[in-house]
């Protein structure tokens, strides 16, 4: 049985008086310890799927199940301990007036977990940050360091599933490489399951076993890693996306 099962997920919401049909009847299944990619252009609904899973966007239709159970509405603490998310913009996802210490201890405080000092040290070491950074503010960190803090924060509750929303698209190439390596290492060490969104086929290919190509809120085609490297797409849209990323083969 798959760990994450999404069936006919539909997300509609109102924004500025318009009805936005962000996601239309998308189904996918992610096995435990698998890394699954969502790729598409802006407005394809790929990020909305992640947001719908964790309750930041409304589920208008369809079901989402984690380990066979329909997810609770609203999401409870037990859900928070299983599923966490890393956001795209490391400048916007850390509270500007909270130190690294506060950001990392908050999930522990919410869930009533003690042993803060040891867990904090562990978390910082795990993501490769020196412990001297513990009392720094976000503006005293570089983009890559901030994203490491965001990853550490998402892992504080030891979740099984990590939702990654373009985690490296705001970073420089060299920092992107370090961050991707870090994510892969953590996944191997902790047996995490990734559901990752990106617009960059090369990043998706490097990180994911399977990928779903999306356009205008609909699933277009599911590709395995082999399909992608061998350019074996069936639909015209997936093909055009691949052709536009041709320089990513170099």
């Amino acid at each position, binding site marked *: 049985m798959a760990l994450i099962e999404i069936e006919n997920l539909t997300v509609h919401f109102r924004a500025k008086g318009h009805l936005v049909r962000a996601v239309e009847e998308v189904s996918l299944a992610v096995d435990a310890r698998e890394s699954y990619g969502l790729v598409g252009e802006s407005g394809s609904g790929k990020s909305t799927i992640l947001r719908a899973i964790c309750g930041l966007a409304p589920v208008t239709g369809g079901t989402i199940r984690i380990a066979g159970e329909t997810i609770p509405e609203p999401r409870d603490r037990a859900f928070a301990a299983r599923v966490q*998310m890393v*956001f795209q913009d490391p400048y916007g996802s850390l509270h*500007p007036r909270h130190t690294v210490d506060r950001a990392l201890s908050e999930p522990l405080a919410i*869930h009533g977990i003690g042993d803060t000092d040891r867990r904090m040290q562990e978390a910082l070491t795990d993501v490769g940050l020196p412990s001297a950074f513990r009392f720094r503010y976000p503006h005293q960190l570089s983009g890559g360091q901030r994203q490491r803090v965001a990853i550490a924060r998402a892992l504080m509750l030891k979740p099984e599933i990590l939702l990654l929303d373009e985690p490296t698209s705001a970073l420089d190439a060299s920092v992107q490489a370090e961050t991707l390596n870090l994510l892969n290492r953590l996944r191997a060490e902790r047996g995490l399951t990734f559901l990752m969104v990106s617009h960059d086929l090369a990043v998706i290919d490097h990180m994911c076993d399977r990928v779903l190509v999306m356009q205008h809120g609909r699933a277009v085609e599911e590709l395995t890693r082999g399909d992608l490297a061998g350019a074996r797409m069936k639909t015209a849209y997936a093909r055009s996306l691949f052709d536009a990323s041709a320089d990513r083969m170099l």
Partner: protein
Amino acid sequence: MTTLTAWLRDPNPMSRIQARLGQSYLSWLRLRRNPLTMLGLAISVALLMIALFAPILAPHDPIAQNLAERFIRPFSAGHWLGTDEFGRDILSRILYGSRITLYIVALVILTAPVAGLIIGTVAGYFGGWVDQVLMRITDIFLAFPKLILALALVAVLGPGMVNAVLAIALTSWPPYARVARAETLTVRNSDYIAAVRLQGAGRARIIWGHIMPMCLPSVVIRVTLDMAGVILTAAGLGFLGLGVQPPLPEWGLMISAGRKYLFEQWWVATMPGLAIFIVSLGFNLLGDGLRDVLDPKSASK
């Protein structure tokens, strides 16, 4: 001294307190660059000192009457700012009056912004009908001119210093609620609020620990800029006889009393007027400088 600044500037603080103090120190350095702000700060600190040490600084009793020395001109020996119609030393009365001014300002600051902050963040975060109800109440308060509303409240409650404070506080919270709500609306959809929601945080924790710290700077700026207004409203109530009652040396009351003699004995009304002017100016300058340092929009770089 050098070890202290080094400790404050340490890029790798060892504790939350050191981190926070370090940030405050950097803000202070930025604040210090603006001479007008420093003037405002000096005036505010001077007001505080004068209020604290009024009994030592004042050459005379502010209330004791001495009809033999009525209307002595300013700059005379013993009475630097002259005396009023009861022969009371104006300088001493102004010095003691600073205590009343400060008392009113302090009480208003401790109540109105706190209420406004809570109402604004709650309305902004919850949205929907909670927002509608709270903001319509705010609108009702905003619809009346401040002084008129304060007058009506004092008329109901009866004159007196505490009632004046209450009236001013009740009329001055709506702008803070507005500011806090606006700030909350921009913050509530940010990724860092989403992140703490995803961790399972309750609403109270989100509002108190994550949203309020972001609203605080704008409210603090607004409060500093409003202090002058509070002093003026208090003086206005005193002037109309609805605030502090004689013989207490409240500045507005003193102007009101001196009004009768404005043409012959101009100093009786002018001196407390100057005091109000200087203190209001001081708070305004300070508020302007704080805005440059605290405002997240201008200080983002």
